[in-house]
């Protein structure tokens, strides 16, 4: 079951054939349905249905005198690490329990400006650290396709909000695959834009040089419209790029005759699950059928992405999370003196995965280790980025790869952190290089969704969407079979 598409909702709402309040009512009803009881999917950490409805009615009131926004009347679920004025922002962490931001993130402001209705805060791995949405202070989120399995993570709640048909668009965030991997596990579309394409102002930082707000859509078109609404320069974020945002919907019906698709061989190792390989091969055949030129390419430093990622991201996180100290806001536990208060607050406020990464990050930045770890990792990071640059400069327009090395695994099945980290093996590279990437469904194995990934060069999301629109159209029902 999917929510009505963004394009339809907008058109019908603008024409007055559908009331935004009815759209919200439908979303509320579906959210209650999937969330209820022991088998509830645990999608949201916070929902204020009355507030959503009152926003919907104010849209109806303004309909006559405003130009219909790109997301008019569309409910959008928001990951819990994106600051919202009317709902708490807790990052799935006890340390921010009940925290309500006194200011709003740029992306949510833009959603509102486009006529969207922020609909609930979705569950996530604490501070976006995880690949399964099991590491939340508010319990795990379940995969709607197989509720004994994880939805992926860290943006699992947002992925499930779309996959279970509550909303057609949801905001997530990516530091190393946290939108694309859950999109793949849940059989929906997930986009990570170019670093700098979307403002990070109001996105609670995990690893600042990797973080980007991403978008889930039930379809490529939903995701394209969602990204179009939030993308663009923001003077409040010094790392946001002042580059014009094209219409991502423009290539919706284009063929792929002039498109060169690269298949990086490092993403199709001998160890790759043969069923995933088979679905990728089928998708590539479709791309050829659409007129694309397909060729094998190489990104030789791919295997270094996970080690580099797990140095750079924790290093930045250890610094970014220092502000959660119990002094000004959030959870605080008294202890012996100032140091005791810090220790009590932070050791009880953060969960084990966050603590692990803060320790790891503190270690790699320490005097005597900085050169061996952090500096070296940054050097390797530039090699990974150079790999992409060389391939895209050689005339390849987009790359196609599997999104994740597996389908959704069972809740509790992976307890070794390093094994969990390998879940991001095909996705972390895009964050390290800053390039845009997206996942879309390309079929199922034993009923579990498999995602295919497109990657493009910096700020070339439009070409990536063109390819995704075409593949989605060509696969049709096969994508979910």
């Amino acid at each position, binding site marked *: 079951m999917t929510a009505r598409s963004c394009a339809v909702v907008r058109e019908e709402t603008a024409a007055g054939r559908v009331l935004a309040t009815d759209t919200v009512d439908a979303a509320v009803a579906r959210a209650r349905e999937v969330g209820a009881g022991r088998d509830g999917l645990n999608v949201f950490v916070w929902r204020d249905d009355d507030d959503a409805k009152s926003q919907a009615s104010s849209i109806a009131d303004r309909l006559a005198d405003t130009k219909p926004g790109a997301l008019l009347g569309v409910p959008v679920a928001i990951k819990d*690490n*994106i*600051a919202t004025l009317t709902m708490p*922002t807790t*990052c799935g962490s006890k340390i*921010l329990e009940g*925290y309500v*931001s*006194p*200011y709003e*993130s740029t992306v949510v402001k833009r959603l509102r400006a486009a006529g969207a209705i922020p609909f609930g805060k979705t569950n996530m791995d604490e501070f976006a650290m995880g690949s399964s949405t099991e590491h939340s202070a508010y319990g795990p989120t379940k995969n709607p396709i197989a509720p004994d399995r994880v939805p992926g993570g860290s943006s699992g709640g947002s992925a499930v909000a779309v996959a279970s048909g509550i909303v057609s668009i949801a905001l997530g965030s990516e530091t190393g695959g946290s939108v694309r991997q859950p999109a793949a596990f849940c059989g929906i579309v997930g986009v990570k834009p170019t670093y700098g394409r979307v403002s*990070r*102002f*109001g*996105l*609670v*930082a995990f*690893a*600042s*040089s990797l973080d980007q707000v991403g978008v889930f859509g039930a379809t490529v078109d939903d995701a394209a419209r969602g990204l179009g609404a939030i993308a663009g320069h923001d*003077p*409040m*974020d*010094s*790392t946001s790029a002042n580059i014009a945002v094209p219409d991502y919907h423009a290539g919706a019906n284009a063929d792929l005759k002039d498109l060169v698709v690269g298949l990086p061989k490092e993403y199709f190792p001998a160890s790759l699950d043969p069923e995933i390989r088979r679905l990728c091969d089928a998708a590539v055949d479709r791309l050829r059928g659409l007129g694309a030129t397909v060729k094998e390419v190489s990104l030789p430093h791919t295997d270094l992405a996970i080690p580099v990622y797990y140095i750079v991201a924790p*290093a*930045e996180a*250890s*610094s970014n*999370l*220092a*502000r*959660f*100290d119990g*002094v*000004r*806001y959030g959870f605080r536990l008294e202890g012996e003196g*100032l140091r005791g208060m*810090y220790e009590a607050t932070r050791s009880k406020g953060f969960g084990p995965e966050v603590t692990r990464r803060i320790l790891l990050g*503190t270690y790699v*930045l*320490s*005097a005597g280790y*900085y050169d061996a770890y*952090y500096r070296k990792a940054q050097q390797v990071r530039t090699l990974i980025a150079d790999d992409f640059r060389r391939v895209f400069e050689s005339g390849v327009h987009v790359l196609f790869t599997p999104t994740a090395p597996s389908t959704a695994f069972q809740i509790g099945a992976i307890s070794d952190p390093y094994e969990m980290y390998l879940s991001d093996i095909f996705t972390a590279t895009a964050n390290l290089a800053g390039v845009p990437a997206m996942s879309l469904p390309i079929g199922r194995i034993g009923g579990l969704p498999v995602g295919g990934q497109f990657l493009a060069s910096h700020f070339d999301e439009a070409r990536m969407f063109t390819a995704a629109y075409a593949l989605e159209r060509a696969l049709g029902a096969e994508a979910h079979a």
Partner: protein
Amino acid sequence: MTATAAAPATTLDRWEMVVGLEVHVQLKTRTKIFCGCSSDFGAAPNANTCPVCLALPGALPVLNERAVGLATRAALALNCAVQPVSIFARKNYFYPDLPKGYQISQFDKPLALDGWIEIGTRAVGAPIRIGITRVHMEEDAGKSIHDRFSGATAIDLNRSGVPLIEIVSEPDIRSAEQAGAYLRVLKQILEYVDVSDVNMEEGSLRVDANVSARRRGETKLGTKTEVKNMNSFSGVERALEVEFARHVGVLEAGGTIEQQTMLWDGSAVRPARSKEGSHDYRYFPEPDLPPLILALDWIEQVRKDLPELPAARRARFATDYKLGEYDVEVLTANPRLADYYESVARAHGEPKAAANWVMGEVMATLKTSGEDIGRFRVRPADLASLLNLVRDGIVSHTAGKQIFGHMVATGDPPAQIAEREGLVQVDDDAQLSAWLDEVLAENPVEAERYGNGEKRLQGVLIGAVMKKSKGRADPRKLNQLLTARFAS
């Protein structure tokens, strides 16, 4: 630590003091370095704060261009090489008044490198040049207030994010006196280029000193300690003397100096409780800010826009106005005084007279009132008019001083005051002769003795006329009349 007796003066002579200074200067911007909050001093606690300087989740820094301009200006005035690319870095440590848990500063790629200033001349005449290692930009932390609430510490984050530059000197300073001279010259330069209020009491200038001792003739540096918490330049000088003597005492006794932070309490130094030296700040490049890239022509434009610096101004005052060394020093002490003097001198045309008045009447008045010359009621043009009145004999020198007093009190122009107060000098022969006649008649004895050649009585007679005229009689003309009267 055990207390060690400070070394006596004769022992001190065998040792050389080595000092490097770290000076934090608050830049004169309207807003903070990474957000739009006011950087004003003295607002109600936490009034000047926002999500960015409170470090709320999700907030991001945006660099204040004006702060970059001022920092660059300061660095160029200190003869530094401004770097076309510099990098902001995070200095990580936990403290309640550091809301992000890190300070945004600059570390291995600072704004500017390799500068120097001159702090006077040695006995042999060679200038004493103190190297400046680097100038970097950073944000200030907030303030912890320990004595406001019993059993609790209050945090005021108004200062959090106020723009600073840190100016780090080479260990080129060899005495407490030189340290004081360095600070005074530095302050003067920063005042001239108008980048800061450089007010130590208000915290817009703060000094930490690294000090060590070595035997004279030794070239290797001794172990240093860092002395903090000085709140005046003379405090820095005294703290250095005390800490240096402590080093020498320890070393003479065969001990070793522990590298640590010492706090000056106004009369003594004591080790800081927390071992600040042992911090590992885990610096790394600030990912929320791109590298700071300054175009070479922009840097050159800032250099061209630099105002005249103290040394150049001193040289020019000596040449253009033919002033002596002392006058030059006094009149160029700060740019506002120098501007004031220069306006008076130009308008009046006689630099020496202008200097005498500014250094005399004007500075005495300011000293009494505690006012800054920038707000002085008597504007340079009016003072020049007064000097013209005195020079042209319209008013006497004595009357001039009286008029100046009225100008300070009322702000009125001098001619108007002279008229109103009847201080215009009388040079009319008839009036002067009439007064003279009266005086001679009233003092027949003195008149006769003067007539008989007792010339020293001239003063008495003239004085009597001056008194009768209420100071208005033109003394030069009066003298001529008196001499003429008895010349026959």
